[in-house]
């Protein structure tokens, strides 16, 4: 599946408000990261937004992107995380 591709999942959990998508898109654009897919939904009363992003050559652990997203989340009052897609493929696909 996506295993060989360098993609990641960006997740936003919390209360919906103006500026979440704008803020994240801006930040990602600064790293030259393209958003492949975006969806939002309410799960168990929590606003949830999931983005699948193309990291290209970016290496999550060698970049400050996790910290920057976390800081943006703190500013917006939501929780934002970025995780390599490999984790989800491992857990949910046989």
């Amino acid at each position, binding site marked *: *599946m*996506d295993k060989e591709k360098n993609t990641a*999942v960006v*997740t936003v*959990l919390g209360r919906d408000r103006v500026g979440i998508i704008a803020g994240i898109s801006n930040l990602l654009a600064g790293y030259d990261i393209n958003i492949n*897919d975006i*969806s939002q*939904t309410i*799960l*168990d009363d*929590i606003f*949830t937004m*999931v983005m*699948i992003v193309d990291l290209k050559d970016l*290496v*999550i*652990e*060698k970049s400050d992107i*996790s910290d920057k997203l976390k800081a943006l989340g703190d500013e917006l009052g939501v*929780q934002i*995380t*970025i*995780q*390599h*897609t*490999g*984790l*989800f*493929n*491992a*857990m*949910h696909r046989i």
Partner: protein
Amino acid sequence: MINDYEIIETMKMFSQQHLDIRTITMGISLYDCCASTPEESCQKIYDKICRCAGRLVEVGEEISRKYNVPIIHKRISVTPISMIAAASGASDYTIFAKTLDRAAKDCGVNFIGGFSALVQKGYTASDKTLINSIPQALAETDFVCSSINVASTRSGINMDAVRDLGVIIKKTAEATKDSDALGCAKLVVFANAPEDNPFMAGAFLGPGEPECVINVGISGPGVVKHALEGVKGQDLGVVAETIKKAAFKITRVGELVAREASERLGVPFGIIDLSLAPTPAVGDSVARLLEEFGLETCGAWGTTAALAMLNDAVKKGGTMASSFVGGLSGAFIPVSEDEGMIAAASSGCLRLEKLEAMTCVCSVGLDMIAVPGDTTAEVISGIIADEMALGTFNNKTTAVRIIPVPGKGVGDSVEFGGLLGTAPIMPVNTASCADFIHRGGRIPAPIHSMRN
């Protein structure tokens, strides 16, 4: 494509249900560190550990960042020191323990296992030296863990070692009495010890293991408990199926981390140990998980049956998820490290005898049990003998990690802090078994050991 539900489920496992990778443990063979003097041997040991494990912590943190997965411990296990120190001619092996401690600290890991001996059939001179060095070695080091395998289904039980270890445990308690016998929390007595176990305090790298290897221990009682909360009142077949699915997912995280660590460190991947290892944190308890089966408290009648089923279902789900499963693999029931166990033991519902029964069907043994400081060495040996018999005759691993806390009695409790937790002092049946223990010798291997 991964769907949103799966993504959110995963996020919650980590953020709310305490799923984590408990440990990446690097096994390092020390066969090439034998030397004719202890100083020379220790220098080789130190150099080799630092050479192999120098990047272990850094790599663990990188992987943790990539997947946003907590990796709690990075640890090292080594070849049993009794084998390596034998040629050095030393009359006390504390110097070897101190070397391991120094290497662990310089590599940034928080435990190093392998101050160990395998004596299930008898002692070598070196095994004796090592065992006699344990109290001082554990008192003078911070991160060193010691384990002694005194029994196996193939060899029977070395009752001389069982007798001697009762005394050694008492001496270790005395030598570390200023920290409430903390030394005993780092000393495990085994039957059928696995050679690839990544979990402390019982980790060592067995004689059949490779030069250097990565073994990973996972955890996640909270995830399984949460999954069971979704099937309240349904029959036990559904419960088993639910546990298997949760175990599968947990194990896959371990497999992913293990393979990635192995690749980055250039060291082969050994095994995943798919154990449910509790911590004292609320929501990370095996006891509470057992209670989710429908028990008022852990220790109630039905606990052993629930644990048996849990242990089995975890293995079934886990083996599907990884081709290389090993170590202890099952459910851990350390009393002091599990919030629900602490509560059950403090209320008197969970007694040593019930715990003993539970160890017949789970992956470890009487683990992190604090008992009164005046418990005799013979009674401790008796407890070890019974537990070793369960392992030897049922063809499974069992272990004893018991802490006779000097100056404390039933009603007191002891605080070890961190993951080692808080242990209520549990009452012990003090009827004498001294004459039995002092017979010594070997309990022959059971008839079903003869499989050839």
